[in-house]
């Protein structure tokens, strides 16, 4: 059984100017011990997909259709109490904007401590914990160890620092630490290393590799950085305007992209080895989420567009090593 299985997920936001169809029919599975990359331009719906998996989408957003199965159970039908047990325990999320994710008037260590404490057996009443009457030495030691593991220097002292005393990179590492505290079975990592310097990034990638090796954890790794995908991920999902354009093994998709959109993403990576070459810039804009085309979402920008691309968004064709939502792949479909 897959750790995560998403079928035909639709997540909409009912805004004043209309319904934003942020996610429109995503299918995605992740097996235990697998790291799956999720890439796509800004606004393609990566973060919304991640919050939908934990049923965290809030008003004005709603999950309009589809199912999310974690370990076989239908996440979207669980009660808040049942969800609270999964969240932060078996499934954890690394938020894209970690500085905002922490409470400014609480120490960072305490916030990690509370996560750990609320998932441990024999938990006290939450209000007792909240009043600070519940300092657990074991939990504190575990948090300090974790802060150390994610590369925060002087973790013992940093435990009692407030978020504003952390640098951007350090608070990001603390966020990663929070996600890994309870030995999760599934981690949804939304750009966890964006903006970190290379050595810290390598350290955190290593941490995830160890986690996967030791605990068979499944990871959804959202990123803009295809080089990280190449280093880390077993499979990659390419998203565009709420749809999956291509999904397959990292090796296959990145070395020989089948969707023109994947090709365009790869082409827009600056090449340090060939600095003279003019950088490729994708023409056009991401379609307005309120007013998306009926046909292929990428048709207006696609260099290989055909007439019928404007009629229907293509179904996904299975070509053996991947699935591609593009009519170009129709001939190769099995």
């Amino acid at each position, binding site marked *: 059984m897959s750790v995560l299985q998403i079928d035909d997920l639709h997540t909409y936001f009912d805004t004043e100017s209309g319904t934003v169809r942020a996610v429109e029919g995503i299918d995605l599975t992740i097996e235990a011990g697998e790291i799956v990359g999720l890439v796509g331009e800004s606004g393609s719906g990566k973060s919304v997909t991640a919050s939908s998996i934990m049923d965290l989408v*809030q008003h004005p957003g709603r999950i309009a259709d589809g199912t999310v199965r974690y370990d076989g159970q239908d996440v979207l039908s669980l009660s808040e109490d049942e969800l609270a047990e999964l969240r932060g325990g078996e499934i954890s999320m690394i938020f894209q904007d970690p500085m905002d*994710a922490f409470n400014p008037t609480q120490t960072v260590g305490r916030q990690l401590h509370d996560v750990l404490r609320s998932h441990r057996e024999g938990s006290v009443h939450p209000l007792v914990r909240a009043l600070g009457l519940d300092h657990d030495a074991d939990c504190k030691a575990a948090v300090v160890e974790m802060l150390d593991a994610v590369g925060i220097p002087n973790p013992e002292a940093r435990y009692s620092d407030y978020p504003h*005393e952390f640098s*951007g990179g350090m608070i990001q590492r603390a966020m990663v630490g929070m996600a890994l505290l309870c030995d999760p079975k599934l981690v949804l990592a939304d750009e966890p290393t964006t903006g970190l310097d290379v050595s810290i990034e390598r350290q955190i990638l290593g941490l995830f590799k160890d986690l996967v090796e030791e605990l068979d954890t499944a990871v959804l790794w959202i990123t803009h950085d295809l080089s990280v995908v190449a280093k880390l991920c077993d499979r990659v999902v390419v998203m565009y305007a709420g749809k999956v354009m291509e999904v397959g093994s990292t090796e296959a998709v990145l070395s020989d992209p089948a969707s023109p959109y994947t090709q365009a993403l790869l082409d827009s990576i600056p090449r340090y080895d060939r600095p003279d070459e003019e950088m490729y810039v994708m023409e056009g804009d991401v379609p307005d989420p309120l007013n998306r085309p009926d046909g292929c979402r990428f048709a207006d920008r696609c260099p290989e567009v055909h007439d019928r691309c404007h009629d229907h968004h293509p179904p996904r064709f299975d070509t053996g090593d991947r699935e591609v939502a593009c009519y170009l792949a129709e001939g190769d479909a099995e």
Partner: protein
Amino acid sequence: MSRLLRYLLGRLLWAIPVLLGASVVTFMIMQLTPGDPARFILGQRASQEAVMELRRELGLHQPIFVQYVDFVFHAAQGDFGQSLQTREEVTAMLLQRIPYTAQLSIAGLLIAVVVSFPVGVIGAVREGEAADHASRVGALLGISTPNFWLGLLLILVFAVPLEAFPIFGMTLVTEDPIAAVTSTLLPAIALGTAQAALLTRLLRGGMLDEMQEGYVRTARAYGIDNRETTYVYVLKNAVLPTITVIGLQLGALLGGAVIVEQVFGIPGIGRLAIQAIFNKDFPVIQGVTMLVAVTFVAANLLVDVLYAQLDPRIRLGGSER
């Protein structure tokens, strides 16, 4: 020096120009009367000798700058001269009345806080539900009810038929605690209702804003109990700005006290001020004005200290970014 101490010292230094400004305004109260202040005080029919006598007493014959320095010099020692009406020391008159206004204001504030906290929190937690609508209507009523009208209403409905509540006057808590409670309750309600309504709205709005913050989403995403998040962290962060407003509202509170003291016949600073204004008793007016200014500055200083204690972003200095 610790950051907190430096912060507080900075705030304390700020109080100096504020108080100097207040002293200029207070001093000018008399200077700005049309024509000769002494003539203005004594009236058209007073003799020329009496006017000259008063001019000397008030120091009006000196250059204005000398008068001001003299005023500040004495005011700094708590000396505002004698009442023109009763010949009493102004400071003694103030000291005698401060306890009444203090008891009334503190009780009014207490009522405001005790009412607004639960009502504001319930309004936020049950946003859009019946309880929220009720709390919002209540707050609107509270804000739009004039305190003198509310005071008269309370007297008519409670004090007149029920012997427990006196209609007139107020007993100090140091004299008789029980009588103090019964005599302070109604005026304190009249005074505190508008404040309660304001704080309710602020707290409700603050909590709703706070609930949109990223850390609330994080807490939810990490399975932390919703009650813990709402009643401890969200509440605490929403209370912080409310504390500042309480300090700033002190002016409104004292202004309200002037009227409520009048309605309930309480011998406090407000009543003293009104009498002094009617009698053109300038030394007393000046004394009251400076007292209010000092109270305001002191209360806001206290609020700053409290705020700094509660908010680590201030206690430990601002963000480095």
